[in-house]
């Protein structure tokens, strides 16, 4: 309970610690990384195409908001459209494993990228969607700080859904599938259906984050569906710690704060990202959260039982 209060307090104070747009970005990318980890960490499937879900929702939410919908409904529309897309992509790719799954999801995401680029009348192609308003039944939310607090309940709902999933019987089956799929099958679990549902959930949460991301910035660039976006979220999840859920939030915070800080004096962000990626994969695979948990467990073991 004190931990929950501390977390809640941090969420409320965050836009006063860093500027509000970045504060919401931290939470949204964090939710995105957690959604990815629901697949990667809990059933061992590395999706390299999650930009397709984040980006599709970003476009849909932005267009719905421009059509005059209040922002929660616009985001809900984004989640709906994205879940439909995820149903198709998930159906085709869920039976694949490991690197094969990664390549297939990556390829489908690139298809979405080309379609987004092609549908210029809707997406604006390389110019993107500009001037996205954010309203809530007459309330003016153009102030970033106001929007942060307006969006916070939705983000918290996303966190809660992810957390609840992991702690539920459904989540335990997922871990069983990750550890030994054949055994879970032998126990009578339709493992493919579990993986598919997890895929949809992961895509839906990514969509929730992506839609809010579009509204947070007031515009959508083609970058939201590019493969480098898929790679960036994978890096955040790994940096935080695979299979830790909350690690994603931490990983996203580190990457975004680093980018914010680096961009002040260099434009070599790609070089920096690449180096971090290589270092994390080579020597820090447990991630920040994973390492902390491990340290804590070691300390507990070190205390002799009386």
């Amino acid at each position, binding site marked *: 309970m004190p931990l929950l209060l501390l977390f809640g307090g941090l969420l409320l104070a965050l836009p006063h610690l860093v500027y509000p747009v970045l504060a919401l970005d931290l939470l949204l990318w964090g939710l995105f990384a957690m959604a990815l980890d629901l697949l990667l960490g809990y059933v061992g499937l*590395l999706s*390299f195409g999650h930009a397709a879900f984040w980006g599709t929702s970003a476009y849909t939410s932005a267009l719905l908001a421009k059509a005059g919908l209040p922002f929660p409904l616009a985001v809900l529309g984004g989640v709906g459209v994205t879940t439909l897309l995820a149903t198709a992509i998930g159906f085709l790719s869920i039976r694949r494993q490991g*690197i*094969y799954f990664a*390549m297939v999801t990556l390829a489908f995401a690139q298809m979405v990228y080309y379609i987004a680029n092609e549908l210029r009348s809707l997406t604006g192609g390389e110019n993107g969607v500009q001037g996205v308003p954010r309203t809530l039944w007459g309330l003016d939310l153009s102030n970033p700080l106001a929007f942060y607090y307006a969006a916070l309940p939705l983000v918290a709902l996303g966190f809660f859904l992810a957390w609840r999933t992991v702690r539920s019987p459904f989540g335990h089956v997922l871990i069983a599938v990750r550890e030994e799929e054949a055994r879970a099958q032998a126990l009578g679990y339709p493992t493919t259906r579990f993986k598919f549902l997890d895929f949809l959930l992961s895509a839906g949460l990514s969509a929730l984050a992506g839609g809010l991301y579009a509204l947070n910035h007031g515009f959508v660039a083609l970058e939201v569906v590019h*493969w480098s976006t898929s790679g960036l979220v994978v*890096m955040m999840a790994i940096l935080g710690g695979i299979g830790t859920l909350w690690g994603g939030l931490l990983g996203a915070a580190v990457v975004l704060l680093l980018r914010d800080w680096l961009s002040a004096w260099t434009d070599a962000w790609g070089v920096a990202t690449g*180096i971090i990626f290589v270092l994390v*994969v*080579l020597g820090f695979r447990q991630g920040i959260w994973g390492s902390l948990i491990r340290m804590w467990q070691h300390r507990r073991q070190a205390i002799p039982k009386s």
Partner: protein
Amino acid sequence: MEPSVLLLHVFNGLVNGAFYALLSLGLAVIFGMLRVVNFMHGALYMLGAFGAYILLQEVGIGFGLALILAPLLVGMLGMLLERLLLRHLYALDPLYNLLLTFGLTLFLQDGMRLFFGIQGQPYGTPGWLRGAVDLGVVVYPTYRLFVIGFSLLVCVLVWYALERTRLGMVVRAATERPDLTRALGINVDRWITPVFGFGAALAALAGVLAAPMRNVSPLMGADLIITVFAVVVIGGLGSILGSVVAGFLVGVVTALGALFYPALANTLVFILMALVLLLRPAGLFGNPEAS
């Protein structure tokens, strides 16, 4: 539709297919031996093109010699990266190697952007390959015919080396059962680095071939590599024959498809991939049991 127009598109498709085939062949060789899906492949292709460009601008070496030198240099870089970095991850899930090479891709692409800018650099068609050839039905640029012929030749040579020589036998054996091959007294590890270097050199070779046709730019391999991944899924991951046949096939089919429905030009390869996944999940030439 006029047959000559159709044939023109078939040839254009074969040119694209030549690049797909060379790149997916390199991926297949590397995957077969090392179980590494080399995300870096597109960046190595880009480095091959830049290698040719730099050799011409700074050293004055022409296209013919660059076709040998640039792949050699990139192959050496590949071997260096394999020894220094990739080597440490073989015992782990292959996903980590995919991630590592992804990171290296970002590094290489952005590094080149810092040096050369995002704009493309021009690379002239070599003198002895300028002009066009009259094939009776169509007149086609000599250089593009050369690309088709040269890459076909390379593919056949690689296939021959792998399927018909003792060296190929060792590589194939090590690919299938590294433990058993070791037990027969063959030093498998000795082959890993050269095979990676060879795969990297194949990617660079495609890059040199692309230099006179496409602008030499840091991002030239970025989207191509994903298309090649789709080609690899279509052909069957790790299949040597599948990578080459699927490469040319996808090139021609997408060129013809784009002729009838231009809006599909970029997405057709992914639609093909979806179809193959539905009908034959292991890929056209893949082993259904192995996947």
